[in-house]
């Protein structure tokens, strides 16, 4: 049961990573990247590392996503090729 949950989280992680790499709209890619960070945080809670999970949740959703959004708003929104 626990192994099934593990495999489910890993599949979700890999599909989020593939989606981020393939998207051309950088704003959508940033939001999916924030979702990737959330799934990583769940994975660490499942593995019994609450400190790391709290740090990743605060940093991934709070800081990295906001900085990416600032950078996208100052540069280009769509990838050109």
């Amino acid at each position, binding site marked *: 049961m626990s192994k099934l949950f593990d495999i489910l989280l890993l599949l979700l992680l890999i599909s989020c990573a593939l989606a981020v790499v393939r998207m051309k709209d950088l704003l959508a890619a940033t939001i999916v990247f924030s979702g990737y960070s959330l799934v990583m945080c769940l994975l660490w809670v499942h593995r*019994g590392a609450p400190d*790391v999970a709290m740090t990743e949740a605060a940093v991934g959703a709070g800081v990295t996503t906001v900085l990416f959004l600032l950078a996208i708003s100052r540069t280009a929104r769509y990838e050109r090729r």
Partner: protein
Amino acid sequence: MIEALWQNIDYVASVLLFCIGLYAMITKSNLIKKFIGLNIMETSVFAFIVALGVVEGGDAPIMGVGASPPFINPLPQSLILTGIVVAVSTTALALSLIIRIHKQCGTIEADELREME
């Protein structure tokens, strides 16, 4: 060998994520997309190192009430805490450099930057 791989499926998933990040970093020409690839590579290594310390049926390493051995190894978790902070620092610096490049050269695609020299 297939059974050994099936048992260590968490490590194999980390290798897969690393390769996805490496692919994004090599092929995409947009600087921000390259940087997202670097971030995916960093988090995959963190997931691998924390997974090295897991003990089956263990509790989190907090000695409070109701905690009993076996505990999960606390050493990889502390190394990864420092690693996450360093990843955030490189994210902030790289994104500010990208903003500066865009202001100076008008584009953030690596092909166009190379032709501009």
